[in-house]
């Protein structure tokens, strides 16, 4: 703790909402990291694509034009067309929605599920802990793809199925991390101090343990976003994901795969955004971790 720390505490004393200053400090560190800035740009780009797909897309994602099928990039079709003459650029734009939607929804449910189970396992009675850990390990013991195949066979391929599968696979990972953190926190002096001042289990968990575990967990989840996006694309590529006419990066890859020798455009158009999104979220996640974790700060 040197100049930086005393600087922030000085400015904090002048401006009452010191918290704001601290947040901006983290943001500044994030942007100053070149990879972090690149990640931020890429993620913003994908967000703009997803949110503005309706306005930006020159054609309807499912509008076919058989006469123009399997074309290369042109003025009319920036990324060419697929085997049904659909505009790939429009499909890529609309497909980013699926990717982000799956990422957002699974992250949300995994976060809630992981936190709940992890906190209960870490702070609750030992038998409950053992039971939950057994459950988590059992789920993790299944091979992902086989489990996905089984679930898809049972309830049919859909976006909801994908979200369910990924959530089921992510919850145990986060639960384990939260549990470990909770276990190490429950015997710390400040938790004991809170308990000695009358805090019950709910207060201890929500007010004191939660803020200690949520930061690392959020960063972990943000770093898992690319994994989630690739799983969605992978399942859709295998035909286990979104139903056919729906545009998703995975289904674009699946469509293009058959024509890769003659028209590689489809595979490239579906693959490049996937790669960029993955890189973007990874860079951003790592930069976030560096920016918010005081131990990893390079400027201190």
């Amino acid at each position, binding site marked *: 703790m040197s100049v930086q720390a005393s600087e922030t505490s000085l400015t904090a004393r002048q401006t*009452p909402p010191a918290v704001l200053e601290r947040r901006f400090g983290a943001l500044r560190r994030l942007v100053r990291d070149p990879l972090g800035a690149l990640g931020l740009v890429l993620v913003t780009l994908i967000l703009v694509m997803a949110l503005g797909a309706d306005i930006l897309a020159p054609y309807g994602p499912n509008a076919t034009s058989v006469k123009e099928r399997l074309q290369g990039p042109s003025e009319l079709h920036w990324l060419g067309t697929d085997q049904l003459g659909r505009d790939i650029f429009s499909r890529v734009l609309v497909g980013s929605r699926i990717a982000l939607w799956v990422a957002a929804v699974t992250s949300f449910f995994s976060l809630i599920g992981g936190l709940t189970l992890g906190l209960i396992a870490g702070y609750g009675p030992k038998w409950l802990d053992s039971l939950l850990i057994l459950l988590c390990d059992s789920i993790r013991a299944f091979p992902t793809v086989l489990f996905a195949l089984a679930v898809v066979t049972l309830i049919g391929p859909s976006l909801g199925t994908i979200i369910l599968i990924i959530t089921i696979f992510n919850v145990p990972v986060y639960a384990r991390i939260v549990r470990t953190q909770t276990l190490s926190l429950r015997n710390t*002096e400040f938790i004991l101090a809170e308990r*000695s*001042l*009358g*805090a019950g289990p709910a207060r201890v968990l929500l007010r004191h343990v939660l803020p200690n575990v949520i930061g690392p967990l959020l960063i972990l989840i943000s770093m898992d976003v690319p994994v989630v996006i690739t799983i969605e694309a992978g399942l859709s590529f295998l035909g286990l994901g979104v139903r056919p006419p729906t545009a998703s990066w995975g289904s674009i890859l699946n469509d293009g795969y058959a024509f890769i020798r003659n028209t590689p455009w489809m595979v490239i158009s579906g693959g490049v955004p996937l790669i960029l999104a993955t890189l973007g979220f990874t860079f951003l996640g790592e930069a976030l971790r560096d920016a918010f974790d005081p131990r990893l700060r390079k400027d201190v």
Partner: protein
Amino acid sequence: MSEQSSNILQIHNLSVAYATPRGAVRALAHVDLTVPRGEIVGIVGESGCGKTTLISSVLRLLPANGAVVDGNILFNGRDVLAMSDGEMRRLRGGGIAMVFQDPMTALNPVLSVGRQMVDVQFREQRSAGEKRAAAVAKLRRVGITDAESRLDDYPHQFSGGMRQRIAIAMALLTNPSLLIADEPTTALDVTMEAQIIHLLRELKREFAGSILFISHNLGLIAELCDRVFVMYAGEVVESGPVRALFHSPGHPYTQALLRCDPARVVQRTAELPTIPGEVPNLLAPPIGCVFSDRCPAVIERCRVTVPMPVPLGPGHQARCIRIDDAAAA
């Protein structure tokens, strides 16, 4: 007034044991301790003598493998050990508050000091603004300068001594009638220590409660406390008013302890005096007096007879059969 209401805390014949893979460890045996209203009571003893176990049992915060085997604890005349979990929670931070040893770890690192201090007032029916104002007032009271603007700072932005002040302020926000301080100055340097002791004494006068002060520093105890309980191997070997106990210690252990206090060593010696031998193994405690293995005045009978408390003066007693012998002779 009955004895119950003149004492805020009354511990009678308390025995606590820990279950370990190697067998039951007898952590406390037949501990009697009273904290009169408005007094500062000190507990002194070396590491592992059961000081922390004692206060953990008062707050019923013993580790999962610890259990009260025998005895009772009365707080304000009410049996703590018989309370429901809900009553117990109301008591913690309601009647009893605690300050811990290490100020570096006793505050939540990710919450601002202000939030923690507002949060600890969760029982009060007050607006957030009033709670904040109360927090500021208490911080000012314990000597945090610029309290208003430092309320949103995080624990790591304060020094060790300041953090201990904050911890004390937090404990006092709950208006306890008993403040338990578990070696609150051990992790601090000497000047800080003196300031904290000074603060505690001032505060005691103001909040009109009692303080149970745990330390292994005899000097601090002498400085701060009205009464002292000397603990050894899970037993209270001697207790009495500070003056009497320091001037005429009855138990050989207290005498040895006083001889070993570096502050009281008058003559310059090559080596500081120590008590020869080791603390007895509490998996298999001695049958007779717990101090018999290290006692310079030990006789054969010490090893077989459990010593009973022998009165030495008003409120002053020690567990040693040799005192009886001396009186009889």
